[in-house]
């Protein structure tokens, strides 16, 4: 994965950013101070909800519900006064069946990502290197399937799957996720193939390699970081999805987001387990996101913007 092709632009970018620093801004102490204050406030706002939830997941319900009286700013510190307990996590696994939900989520998201990225790599390479009639239309169709509102896609899928007997199955869920992951990965991976200098491949052809060998031994390894990033993003989208899982996954293929909504019953909201479940849901995805941090913006804009 550590190919020269990816390392070189990074170096160039960094030095460019340095140059630019000296041109746009005058580094006055005041500007620096404002920057620090604003960014600190923003980071506090970003992390505070997560911290509150994380603390809530290891507090007893009574401790979690304790807020100071209005206007008592010093009382905020009381949020850290508690004795940690794992009772909510235990409840999730013993009573709510979250072990199975995590497994379903894993199978569905990894399965769908594997299909989407395998097929997406083939399609992207074909689309990137080949020349087809109405290529623009094909590209537009591919991306428009990704733009469709999820609710709109779910309505027909639900009834088609009902007819095929694929409701409440992991297979159905994997196919449903592939509807949005496949178009996404084709489009994103195509961008990575477009970036490769085609001379390398041409040289291999001259050496007598077949198309397939060139694709497998040269193009794919060179685009590997992008392909891995696409895979991770597909997993992220599917793991985080709620609507498809709720409608198509039904009773026997529940994933974590569906499991969470069940902690809100008509009678009460089980806030303790809910906070723990939120932590289970978000921590792996935050880790994955940071792992592919370099490609995140390119991925989420489907290649339109690069950092």
């Amino acid at each position, binding site marked *: 994965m550590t190919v020269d092709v990816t390392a070189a*632009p990074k170096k160039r970018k960094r030095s460019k950013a340095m140059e630019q620093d000296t041109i*746009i801004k005058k580094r006055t102490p005041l500007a620096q101070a404002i920057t620090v204050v604003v960014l600190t406030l923003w980071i506090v706002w970003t992390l505070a909800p997560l911290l509150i939830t994380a603390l809530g997941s290891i507090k007893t319900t009574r401790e979690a519900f304790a807020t100071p009286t209005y206007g008592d700013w010093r009382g905020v510190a009381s949020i850290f006064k508690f004795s940690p307990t794992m009772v909510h996590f235990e409840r999730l696994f013993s009573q709510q069946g979250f072990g199975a939900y995590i497994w379903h989520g894993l199978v569905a998201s990894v399965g769908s990502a594997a299909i989407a990225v395998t097929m997406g790599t083939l399609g992207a390479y*074909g689309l990137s290197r080949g020349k*087809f009639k109405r290529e623009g239309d*094909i590209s537009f169709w591919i991306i428009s399937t990704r733009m469709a509102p*999820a609710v*709109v896609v779910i309505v027909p899928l639900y009834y088609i799957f009902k007819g095929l007997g694929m409701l409440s199955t992991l297979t159905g869920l994997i196919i449903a996720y*592939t509807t949005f992951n496949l178009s996404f990965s084709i489009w994103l991976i195509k961008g990575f193939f477009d970036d490769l200098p085609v001379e390398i491949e041409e040289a291999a052809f001259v050496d007598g390699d077949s198309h397939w060998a060139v694709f497998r031994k040269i193009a794919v390894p060179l685009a590997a970081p992008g392909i891995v990033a696409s895979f991770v993003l597909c997993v992220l989208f599917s793991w985080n999805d709620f609507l498809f899982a709720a409608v198509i996954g039904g009773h026997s293929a529940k994933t974590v987001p569906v499991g969470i909504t069940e902690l809100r019953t008509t009678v009460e909201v089980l806030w303790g387990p809910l906070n723990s479940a939120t932590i289970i849901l978000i921590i792996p995805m935050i880790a994955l*996101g940071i792992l592919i941090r370099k490609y995140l913006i390119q991925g989420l804009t489907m290649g339109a913007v*690069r950092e």
Partner: protein
Amino acid sequence: MPDEQKSGTSSHGGLLRRVSKGRKASTGPAPQELSILHRKKFGMSFYGWILMPVIILLAAITLYPFFWMIVKSFYHVATKPGQHDEWVGLKNYIGLFKDGLFLNGWWIQLRYVVISLVVEFVLGFALALFLNNLKRTANVITTIILIPMMIAPVAVGFLHMYLFNSSFGWYHWFLKSVGLLSGGSILGDMEWAMAAIIIADVWEWTPFMALIFLAGLKKVPLDQLEAAKCDGAPPVKRFFDVVLPNMTSVIVIAVLIRFMDIMRYIDTIFVMTTGGPAGATKTVSYYLFDVAFRYFEIGRGAAHGFVLLLVTIIIAQVFVSVMNKSRKGMAR
């Protein structure tokens, strides 16, 4: 041949042109340079053969449901066994425009989209400018800032439902302490409920805008900035005359992607308010969920979905054309 010389700077463009030439010359034996990359087997090049199965799969899972939806939008679809679908012509579509909740849904959606976009745009741009000020710590700080983007919308919904709770929510406590909030419940209040959903959206997606803008800021040509500086343009003027025009495509992309995502997801609304109170947050996307999976009116849901899809596709068309332009512009 002149074609090929023209595209000498971009090897890829050259390749494409050669292919298209190869296609035209498919009857006779193609020149050597064409046949290496694009030799045809059974009437299709290697690239065609690897693309085709993918296209077939994608068509099966997206086009089929699409046409299914169009067809069913003209039927009253049976939901009980033993009944049959009944042709009703345009009745479903006419019904849509007589449905107050549907029409009002567009208005609510519009408010949701516009307010979120404006707030995220302004905050995102400010954030990008501040992030651009950083040097050594930039990497760590941007990584912290983008954490909300990775969180499932459902989780964001519950996070905010907790924070806005009227007896133990910290946002509620904060708003009360500052004196902004007079009433009791936030998510139960017609006006505040939408505000709460927008705040959740802003919390999650402002970093996305900020990072796109930051990428745009880094690509503003230095020579232009330098020239403006030499001409004595003050920073504000430099910003509007040099920085902004260079960022148009990036801004359009950021806004359009956010627009389409707000149309795409109903998860946070589902969690935080389920469209309430009294339908105050029932956007047109959310209402479709109700029609199809609560009232089980499939025909009407299909018509509803088709209208929603048309609107999104028109906007996607704009998005792609802008994106293609920017791709040409931003090529390294």
